[in-house]
């Protein structure tokens, strides 16, 4: 059993979709921050317009991640010893979403400080909640993928016994 193609495809799709959740909810709908909001105060039209361009580029990268994830998922479907498990896919998606929150949170919110979850507050409790959601999503995703692996292993051993 080769789980890696499905796991990698699901994780990349989760990263892309997690990026879209961040971009759509925090950047656009709630407008709590934008890509460079810690560097460019969002109090005049020029800065807002410049931020809009950087947000657009961020969305372009998340789109590319999602598109490559779909391509990898398609490829995983053609591999004969790769189990087509919905549970594994859901687990991988959650791992990907959590990875996005954790990596983006550590780099952008804490290390290079280009924006924070609630820009008005600067580094705040919300940035740590964002990191915590990343860790929780990865943990839940890992649990689900582990369950999926053991289920697939038992199904595989049962089918071998029948033969």
């Amino acid at each position, binding site marked *: 059993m080769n789980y*890696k*193609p499905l*796991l*990698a495809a699901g*994780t*990349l799709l989760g*990263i892309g979709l997690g990026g879209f959740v961040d971009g759509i909810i925090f950047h656009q709908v709630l407008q709590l921050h934008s*890509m*460079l909001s810690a*560097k*460019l105060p969002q109090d005049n*039209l*020029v*800065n807002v*317009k*410049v931020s809009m*361009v*950087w947000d657009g*580029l*961020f969305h372009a*990268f998340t789109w590319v*991640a999602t598109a490559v994830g779909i391509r990898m998922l398609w490829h995983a479907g053609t591999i004969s010893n790769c189990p087509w498990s919905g549970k594994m896919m859901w687990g991988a998606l959650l791992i990907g979403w959590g*990875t*996005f929150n954790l*990596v*983006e949170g550590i*780099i*952008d919110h804490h290390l*290079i400080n*280009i924006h924070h979850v609630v820009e008005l507050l600067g580094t705040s409790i919300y940035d740590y909640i964002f990191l915590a959601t990343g860790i929780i999503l990865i943990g839940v995703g890992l649990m689900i993928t582990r369950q999926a692996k053991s289920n697939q292993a038992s199904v595989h051993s049962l089918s071998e016994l029948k033969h």
Partner: protein
Amino acid sequence: MKFFVLLSMLLWFSGESNGCPLCKSATAYKIRASLLGPGMLWNMFYMVLPFIIFAAIIYVTYYGFPVNELFRQKTKWK
């Protein structure tokens, strides 16, 4: 109909509505100056950095750690 033509002309010729990065207005000029200023490459690097790490994570998920492979090759019994 006349109202919409007038409205669209107003929007077209007003300075603020022409504030797209490729437009020809004072606002657009400021936007371009800010976008293409000396910090542009750094801003691009900051934006791309998480995606480089994501690509590395996916590579490791798919192929495993490349260091392990190198280590295995070096420590192979001859």
